[in-house]
Structures are given as C-alpha cells and as structure tokens.
C-alpha cells in the first residue's frame, strides 16, 4: 500500500516535471525542472530498493549531466546577453537550491538505506546470486551475464566522444 502511494505520487511528480521541462519558456528553468525530475526518478529507485542506482542517478544525471547542460545553456545564452545576467544573485540562489536538493537527496538515500544493505534487502528477482548488497549484484551482472553489451557500450561511448570532437573541431 505504502509502495503504491509512493509510486503514484512520484509518477505524477515525474510526469508533471517532465511537462514543465518542455513548456517553460526559459532554458535555465527547464534545466532546473529536469534536475527535479531526475531526483524524483532517484527516489523511485529507492522505493524499488535499488539504492546504488539511486545514488548513481543523482551523481551522474542530476549532478554531472545536468551541470553540463547548464554549461551549454549559459555558453549559448552569452550571445543573447542580458536576460541571464540581470541578477547575479539569482544564479547564486539557483546554485544554492540545486546543491541543497542534491545534498538532501543523498542524505535521504543514506538514511533510508542505512542498515538495509544486507542480503535480506536484495530484490526478489535477483536470482541465485550470493553477493551481498545491490552494488555487488549490479556489478556482478554487468561483468558476467551482460559483459558483451557492457563492452559494446564502451565502444558506443568512444563513438560519441570521437563524434563530438569531429563535429566541434575547427578545421585548420
């Protein structure tokens, strides 16, 4: 029951934030909504008892990737000057809100998963693995059953990197 309530609340939040991302007129706002969206997804992972994925979701998506988005947004906005620079403190507040949210999220995950990273909390569908926490189980699956797709994914990342360099490089 509690799980259902959590899921539907989160689902509504995720969808609502998703709509907000694409309807907000200002790019920076839409990136902020995206961060909130990612954080809600992370909470969803916690509800599913995939704590490791939740932390990764926050660190990689809400943290790394969105910061990159913000970089791009701000670099692009430089050309259309004032709008983004009217009130420097607004940016500071935004930064504070962002980092606060991330901190809260991480703290929540740590508090929630404290003492739960035991075999008892392993997801039901995890099969006969003997590994302890779900970090170990995930790693185990990635490097055994899904080793080949995992390696192909590394080629995929290399392609993306080479592609980005090819397209961004200034021809001499």
């Amino acid at each position, binding site marked *: 029951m509690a799980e259902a309530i959590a899921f539907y609340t989160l689902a509504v939040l995720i969808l609502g934030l998703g709509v907000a991302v694409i309807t907000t007129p200002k790019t920076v706002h839409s990136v902020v909504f995206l961060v909130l969206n990612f954080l809600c997804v992370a909470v969803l992972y916690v509800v599913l008892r995939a704590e490791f994925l939740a932390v990764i979701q926050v660190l990689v998506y809400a943290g790394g990737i969105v910061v990159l988005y913000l970089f791009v947004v701000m670099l692009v906005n430089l050309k259309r000057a004032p709008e983004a620079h009217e009130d420097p403190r607004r940016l500071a507040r935004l930064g504070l809100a962002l980092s606060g949210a991330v901190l809260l999220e991480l703290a929540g995950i740590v508090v929630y998963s404290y003492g739960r990273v035991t075999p008892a909390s392993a997801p039901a569908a995890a099969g006969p693995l003997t590994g302890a926490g779900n970090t170990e189980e995930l790693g185990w699956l990635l490097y055994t*059953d899904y*080793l*080949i797709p995992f390696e192909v*994914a590394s*080629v995929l990342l290399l*392609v993306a990197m080479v*592609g980005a360099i*090819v397209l961004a490089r200034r021809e001499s």
Partner: protein
Amino acid sequence: MPEGFSALDFYYILPEIVVTGGALVVLLLSVVTPRRDDVLLGVSLATVAAALYWVAAFAGLDVTASKGLLAIDGFAAFFKVVALGSAAVTMLMSSPYLRVEGLRAGEYYFLILCATLGMMFMASGMDLITLFIGLETMAVSFYVLAGYLKPNPRSNEAAVKYFLLGAFSLGVLLYGMSILYGVTGTTSLEGTAAALAGQESGPLLVLAVVLVAAGMGFKIAAVPFHMWAPDVYEGAPTPVTAFLSVGSKAASFAMLVRIFLEGLPSLGAEWTALFWGLAVVTMTVGNIAALTQSNLKRMLAYSSIAHAGYLLMGVVAGTQRGVAAMLVYVGVYLFMQLGAFAVVAAMRRSDVVGDELKDLTGLSRRSPMMAFAMLFFMLSLGGIPPTAGFMGKVWLFGAAIDAGFVWLAVIAVANSAVSLYYYLRVVVFMWINDETAPASSPLVLGPAMTAALVVAVVGTVVFGLYPQFLFASAEAAATAIEGLGAGTSALR
C-alpha cells in the same frame, strides 16, 4: 574468465572483435599517418575482409553465445555479410568522394566501422539489451556521419534532424521495450516468447507492440515515420546516404524480425495487421512522392522508403518463405541501391555537386560505362527482368500470396508499375543529348570507385541471371528463425 563464460563465447564474437580492433587501429593510424588516406582505406577494407572470413567460418553454426544474449546462426551470418559488404562498397566509393570534399578520412572510416559493429550486434542479438546497444552504436555513428560535411548547411541540417528525431524514436522504442520487460520480467527474446505463449493479449501488450513497431518504423523509414529520410539522405555525404539506406535499413529489418517473429510470435494477429497497413502506406506514399522529385538523392530516398514497404511484406507473411524472400530482397537491394548511390557519388566533382536529375543529361555520351551501370540499377530497382530486382520482387510477392495476402501483393505490383515512371525518367535523362549543357569537368573514375561500381553491377546482373545461390543462402538463413509456419515450398 567470468562465471558461466567459456572461451567459446569470445571465439563466437571474433568477427565483432576484429571489427572493433580494426576501427581502433584506423583511429590510431589517423593520428600517426594523418594524410595517408590510401593506408586508412586499405586497413579498413582488410578489417572488413577478415571479419567476413570469420562470419563465413561460423555460417553453418546454430548456437547461442554469451549466456543467450547472442545468436550465432545463419540469419545473423546473412545480415552480418550484408552489413560488412555494404560497408566495404561504401568505403570504396567514399575514398574519391572524401578527396573531392577535402574531408578527413581517419575518423570517417572509424565511424563506418563502428556503425558496422552496431549492425552486427543487431543481427545476432537475442536480447532486447544487446539489440538496443547495437542499434544505438549504429545510430550515433550515423548522426555524426550525416553531419560530416561541416561547412555545408544542408549536411548540418541532416545531422541535427536525424539526431533529434532519432533520439525521440529511440525513446519510443525503449518505452515499448520497458513495457515488454514489465509484463514478461525478462529482456531475452526467447524468455519473452515463452512468457507470452498462450496468453491473452491485453491493452498493455498492444501498446508495447505499437511502440516498438513505431520505433523500428523510424529506423527502416516506414511511413508515417519517414519524414526525416529525404532531408537526411539529401544532406548527408552521398556514400553515407548509401550506407544509411542499405546497411542501416537491413540491420533494422534484422532486429525487427528478431523482435517480432522470435520474441512476440504469440501477438502475431496484432502486429500482422499493423505491418500490413504500414507496408501499404509505406510503398504507396514512397512511390508517389518519388514521382515529383528533381533531386536524385531525394528521389532515391523516397524509392528507399517504398522498398521498406516491399520488405515489410516478408514480415507480414510471417512464414519461413516470407522471411527467406525478405532476405533475398535485402541481398538484391544491397547491390542496386549501393550502385545507384555510387553513380551519384561519382558525379560529384570539384565544380559540380551532381545530385540533380538534370546533371545526368547526356551521361550516355560523357561516360557510357556509368550510364549503362545506372541503367541496370534503375531497371533492377523498378523490378524489370533480367535484373536481380525482378527476382527479388517475384519472391516477395509470391511469398505474400502464398501466405494469403493476395491484396497486399496486388497493391505492391501496382506500386512497382508506378515506380517504373521515375526510374525510367532517370534513364531518359541520361540518353538526352543536350548540346547546350554547360561544360563541366570530365568524369574520371578512380580505381576505388570503379571497383564499387563493378561490384554493384556484377551483383545486380549475376543475381538476376543465376539467383540460385542467393535463394539457397536466404532459405538456409530463414530456417534459423524458429517457430515459423513453413508456407508451401518456394519456387525453384
């Protein structure tokens, strides 16, 4: 060695390992010897040849490797040969094209090889995850390749359009896959088929089928998911367009057959109706839109859309003979479509873009060999005997009738008749003698371009006269897809 793996698992993916290794060597060489395009071409071609050797060595096998994620069977081998073959011909026609456009060869060949790697995993994937990663590897390579002509705004537009629409369609596809996973609890296609066997289809499963079909429909450029194709085909460098319209389309069909025929046979009633409709609108819209095109690449794009419609007939038939006919047509399409694009690529000279229909004016006089090659490709695309395209169409239409889809075959025949108009228009242009045409630099075919054209012509003609080899390998490959109704024995 990870638990449950054996040396065999790595042995079976030797072709893929060879392609990956070759791609990395090309990338390194492009740094070490930056201006030696011929060396890069040679290494890339050698990589493809080595991979082809190993694919051929595994052709008779029917096993799964890597804990059931990959199938090493005849079906996979067939599509790997198609992927590698189209990559090789693409590289051959790229080398002069890159020189004219002044493009860097190292990253270009690297991306072509990585796209090929993705296609190979799409051909042998037996798990939604493997298939998806393969598809994504191929797609990302193509996003970059489409925008490889950086100073050309049309190429930029092609890359951005393909990227945005491609990312959107991948989202749709993933959504469908995640519903499938939610319902069945497994990403393996065999597991999915087992979990769904004998089950009633519900709205959720129908939604999953529609979403996956829409995602795949984008990749094969089926109407109504085709809007990107003409713009991307026109803007991308011509050899990339050729590779996109052959390799990418073939690999996507392989993935489509795997997912629907091997993973979702129990939902056959739903997706057969869906693909029936898709096939009809795809071939009709493609052919009608092609009638009015004045740009060769756009015309070939619409013709390629129409061909996706024909190929879908094999999936609709859903019999072993239907799949075999689809494979035959893929094999035939490989030669005629690559050949047509090779001619367009050869028309590109330092002062001429050469992708307009009127650029072909008087080609029969300026370069009779090229004009005759183009004549064969156009006749084959239109399905006129004695070319390979005729044999492919006979098989496809026959398979559809055999499976009871007579109206589909009738519509396809009517469409082929319509398509003759625009294919023959190309021929008419080549044989017009227009003395007033402005003088342009002469057509010079280098050895690489000649090799590409010769391969394409030989394939188009030989498989038209002696199609038995292609028929036999397609039939053998189709037996690898399990659980198909046999259909009556194919014509011999």
